[in-house]
């Protein structure tokens, strides 16, 4: 089952700062909903532990996050795959593009997700809404985190 999501955020911070934050595991960890652990294991590879909670469902996913198509400071592709054991698997990615504006930076993302196993059987009713909510929450948290970090520094 495949899902696609898009969104756009205006962030009042210079593009270089946004790009740095996109590559900072500590900021990413704070912004990924339900992320309990995120460590860098290589130049473009991270290891993650994420708890997905939707209604009655609460499943732990161990997974890997990869960064590719790096084009600093205009964007990259962030992708991940997780294994929730018997709950199923989830994998997804997002193409993130940063463009400079007068007010700072506009972040545009196009994300897609695939879910299999029992999670997929739950139906899109549950899963599509969750995937969309998770993507929205991540980029909203990210926009806030970047804005906050920079203002603290001023």
């Amino acid at each position: 089952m495949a899902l696609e999501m898009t969104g756009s955020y205006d962030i009042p911070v210079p593009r270089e700062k946004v790009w740095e934050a996109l590559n900072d595991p500590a900021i990413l960890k704070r912004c990924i909903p339900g992320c309990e652990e995120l460590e860098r294991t290589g130049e473009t590879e991270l290891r993650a532990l994420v708890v997905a909670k939707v209604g009655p469902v609460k499943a732990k996913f161990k997974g890997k996050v990869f960064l590719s198509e790096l084009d600093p400071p205009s964007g990259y592709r962030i992708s991940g795959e997780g294994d929730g054991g018997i709950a199923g698997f989830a994998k997804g990615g997002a193409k993130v593009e940063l463009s400079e504006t007068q007010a700072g930076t506009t972040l545009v993302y196009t994300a897609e997700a695939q879910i299999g196993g029992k999670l997929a059987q739950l139906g899109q009713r549950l899963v599509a809404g969750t995937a969309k909510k998770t993507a929205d929450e991540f980029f909203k948290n990210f926009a806030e985190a970047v804005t906050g970090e920079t203002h603290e520094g001023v």
Partner: protein
Amino acid sequence: MYAFDYQRPSFSQDAVSMMRSLEEPKLLAGGQTLLPTLKQRLAQPGTLVDLSRIPDLSGISVAGDVLRIGAMTRHAEVATSDLVHAHSPALAELAGMIGDPAVRNRGTIGGSLANNDPSADYPAAALALGATLVTDRRRLAASDFFRGLFETALEEDELILAVEFPKSGPAAYRKFRNPASRYAMAGVFVVRGADGVRVAVTGVGQEGVFRWKEAEAALTARFAPDALEGIALDPHTAMSDLHGDGAYRAQLTKVMARRAVEAIGG
């Protein structure tokens, strides 16, 4: 199913204190969503706190103009209660349309509302009828209670004790059910109140139950099935899945709304 501990308190305050003191507790009402989830190993609570033997949580009563339904009251009891039929016949009819007999004999009104499944029936009734949810610590208006997909205003250790429905004007609920699950593909609860018409929709919104304001305005101006002709729900705000896309659900919503208006008699 993973292993878990099990507690069956006799008083609601004991259930609340268990929710505070135990490791990873989870309240068990009728279990019609939670038990299948556990069987699929999609959740792993430490302890299930079973509410089924707390006498105060079940039962139906009327005080003045208010119908009070205990949180652990089963759908089948609501569907067949003389009190509910006299006070709010559309609510009894809705309860009789939930799931199948097995679900109706186990599922509870409090469990359904606390779960806030975007395709469940009771949230539409609670929102349209302006219900009040009475918890162990406060009273919550239905309009403040539902917070999107499977999310409510309830705190982790908060327990719904009862749901109160004020006396309403004529009302009707119509739904198009998924033939397999019997969840609503589109369910519309219409109330013709003294201060205007209220229309609540379930099974359709990406954020769960919602009030369809355009339909409310059109029907308040003129209460007739064809008053809905000129308006349409935005298909992009409707859920889209293998059972039906957004445009299909938006159209179904309009048809169900019209049928509910016809049932009330415009």
